[in-house]
């Protein structure tokens, strides 16, 4: 007996110690609810959620309070005799009508928020967002420049060879930059498959549909960096195309725009320039890493049965024109998309690179002028 007692006490102690060990773990896991809102819509969504949750909690406690009372009092083991009633029209009408009225209470604020959400009229500025497998493109239509936004987290972190950074999987090379307190309208479309552009702190999510343009809007009220992700399954790198928005003060934003415009001018390549093969291949390696390596892999070996190898490929080692046509037009029925959105120089560079990288040994570079000719 005594020994059993001791055993029980010991067991209880272990349990308590275990539970105490869990507590800090739970305190650390502090994500229970929405991210801090920075737009009117996100704020309304949260108050709508909390309002509905409280109604649900009250109904839940009411209904299951009755059920558990019944479970404990109306059981055979305590000798309760079963009543034999099996209908009551009055009660049934009441519990049909009351939920209906409660729904009306919920519908009112939901409708108000929805109308606000869909009101994309009179924006202060417009940005076009394009989903690609697997990155985002941002075009500042009024300013006349645009860029791609790629995942910045190194592969070594994803494959656990390095410690993961603070913004693991939620960091990009070029974030979308917008001014604070400005109604920004985003036109959203996609280049290949469905994507979905989502920034939780803004409360905005809109699917990107190839061939169609949809719109959404937000007006961020605080300077800062806000992070979201693609929310519609878009293939193997779906988990690796984050949305990052940097909200700047209006002055900083104006400076940033000026800087971008200068950069664009500086980077504008002379399409008739004749490049040196090595120089072109070095540029091509970067273009390849940003556009091609996700499927064909950095080592050019592809993924067996899914994405063909470029190392030793017949197309890459064959006629220039054929490879150019494939890169420009894509291949129907496969994941090979058209890359004609890249500049002549970029395309010339990446084709030159693939033809001379790994085990491939083409001597001659492909010049931008040839790409220009192939576009026709």
């Amino acid at each position, binding site marked *: 007996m005594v020994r059993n007692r001791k055993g029980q006490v010991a067991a209880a102690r272990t349990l308590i110690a275990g539970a105490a060990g869990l507590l800090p773990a739970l305190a650390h896991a502090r994500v*229970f609810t929405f991210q801090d809102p920075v737009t009117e819509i996100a704020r309304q969504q949260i108050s709508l959620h909390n309002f509905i949750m409280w109604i649900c909690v009250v109904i839940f406690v009411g209904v299951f309070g009755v059920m558990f009372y019944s479970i404990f009092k109306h059981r055979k083991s305590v000798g309760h005799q079963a009543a034999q009633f099996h209908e009551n029209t009055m009660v049934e009408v009441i519990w049909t009508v009351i939920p209906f009225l409660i729904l009306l209470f919920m519908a009112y604020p939901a409708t108000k928020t*929805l109308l606000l959400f869909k009101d994309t009229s009179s924006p202060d500025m417009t940005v076009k967002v394009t989903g690609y497998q697997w990155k985002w493109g941002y075009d500042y239509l009024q300013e006349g420049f645009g860029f791609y936004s790629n995942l910045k987290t190194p592969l070594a972190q994803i494959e656990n060879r390095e410690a993961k950074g603070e913004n693991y999987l939620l960091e990009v090379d070029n974030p979308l930059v917008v001014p604070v307190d400005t109604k920004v309208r985003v036109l959203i479309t996609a280049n290949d498959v469905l994507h979905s552009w989502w920034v939780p702190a803004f409360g905005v999510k809109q699917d990107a549909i190839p*061939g169609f343009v949809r719109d959404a809007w937000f007006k961020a009220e605080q300077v800062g960096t806000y992070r979201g992700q693609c929310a519609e399954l878009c293939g193997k790198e779906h988990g690796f195309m984050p949305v990052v928005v940097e909200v700047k003060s209006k002055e900083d934003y104006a400076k940033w725009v000026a800087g971008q415009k200068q950069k664009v001018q500086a980077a504008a390549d002379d399409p008739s320039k004749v490049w040196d093969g090595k120089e072109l291949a070095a540029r091509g390696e970067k273009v390849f890493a940003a556009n091609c390596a996700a499927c064909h892999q950095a080592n050019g070996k592809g993924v067996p049965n899914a994405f063909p190898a470029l190392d030793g490929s017949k197309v890459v080692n064959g006629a220039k024109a054929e490879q150019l046509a494939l890169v420009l037009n894509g291949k129907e029925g496969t994941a090979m998309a058209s890359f004609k959105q890249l500049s002549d120089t970029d395309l010339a560079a990446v084709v030159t690179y693939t033809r001379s990288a790994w085990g491939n040994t083409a001597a001659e570079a492909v010049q931008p002028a040839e790409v220009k000719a192939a576009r026709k």
Partner: protein
Amino acid sequence: MSSIPHEHVAGHEHGHEHRPAGLMRWLTTTNHKDIGTMYLWFSFTMFLVGGVMALTIRAELFQPGLQVVRPEFFNSMTTLHGLIMVFGAIMPAAVGFANWMIPMLIGAPDMAFARMNNWSFWLLPPAAILLITSLFVPGGAAAAGWTLYPPLTIQAGMGMDLTIFAVHIMGASSIMGSINIITTILNMRAPGMTLMKMPLFCWTWLITAYLLIAVMPVLAGAVTMLLTDRHFGTSFFNAAGGGDPVLFQHIFWFFGHPEVYIIILPAFGIVSQIIPTFSRKPLFGYASMVYATAAIAILSFIVWAHHMFTVGLPVMGLLFFMYATMLIAVPTGVKVFNWVATMWRGSMSFEAPMLFAVGFLFLFTMGGFTGLVLSLAPLDMQIHDTYYVVAHFHYVMVAGSLFAFFGGAYYWLPKWTGTMYDEGVAKLHFWTSLVFFNITFFPQHFLGLAGMPRRIPDYAQQFADWNMVSSIGAFGFGLAQLIFLYAVVKCIRGQGAKAPARPWEGGDTLEWTVPSPAPYHTFETPPVVR
């Protein structure tokens, strides 16, 4: 009523069981009990296969970073897990229950079309083989999610074609099964059993069968259009050819939303049999239960676009689908209130079937509440395609349908096998399932609200803790299901008390009037129902 029973009354009623032995018995059987058994075993096998896939997913998500599988294989796992659980596990389980129980609940000797019944079952294994072998073809299995949204599905390899054919075959099987169930219920009830005297399980299945016949051809149309877009140059879903990718979503969800009720209504039926039995009190509000079921079924046809709130519908469309969806809470609420009112002032006991029914009621209602949250379009803009949705539909499909099916299995196992199941083992199965289910899925609400998208193989650091908790729960839940297998096998091998004809004191439906185990042929002479 029908002439079928009388043929047998004349001559050989007892002891003549013309059936081959061994494998041929199962290949050629037209007996509703044999076919029901095959459906249930098929369903449990698929449940284990889909479960292993779920555990692969949860193993990868145990920690941030890629450890176990590559992203493309991860996507195949989420896709096949969904397809196999919906079409291979839950739906065949419901048809298995229908085959075994509907003839016995209405006093009929068998299903109306006994040979077609055999065929509707034997279509399923080839479909399952197609789905599973698609993992091994060039390009791998379908990886675009169980919803098969184009254009991603147009890009996929031949695994997608195998999936499309599997869906076609399973759809044909479901349609034949439904025709059989409707005909049986409408034509073969025992004298005196009017429609409004039928056990509620027959009602929910009758309505489910109509839903199936209405929407399975729609799904078949959708996947056929995918097939011709993939191989025959059509452009239904390709904007460059004048089509629209969103058209597929409209068609798919016109099937998909009624499908949700196809999955849950038979479970409602089973729970409506179990709760009165163990409350020793008739079901409260029988007529309103029937009307509520029909209302849910009808509403299910006009709410499909609530799965598509973020595709950019016009505001009037959003409002219509939001209001229609919210309305579903009314008939669903009526059902929950009726079940609680059935328990009220009863004389309850809590054997395993009742535990599962109460567990169903409690957790399904939670899934219903999160469904209400999701129905609000502006809120859905935030939590659509997040883990909140994953949590929501596992509450209604696992803690809803699956728990009800476990309850039904324990409820009728004595009738099927003639042996009482081991109550201690069954209770262990219930409590472990209940606890691990909540450990797995409750934290997913938090993950979704905090911004974790679904269908991703890797995630940001702030989601790490809850994912770890969820993965631990998933492995516990998976292991707990082996307890069920043990309990069932024990019953089949006759290890347990011998079951009387009516093992449950409160059981007053027709199946309890025949011996346990139920003889190979029952009700060859129809019973008279007063």
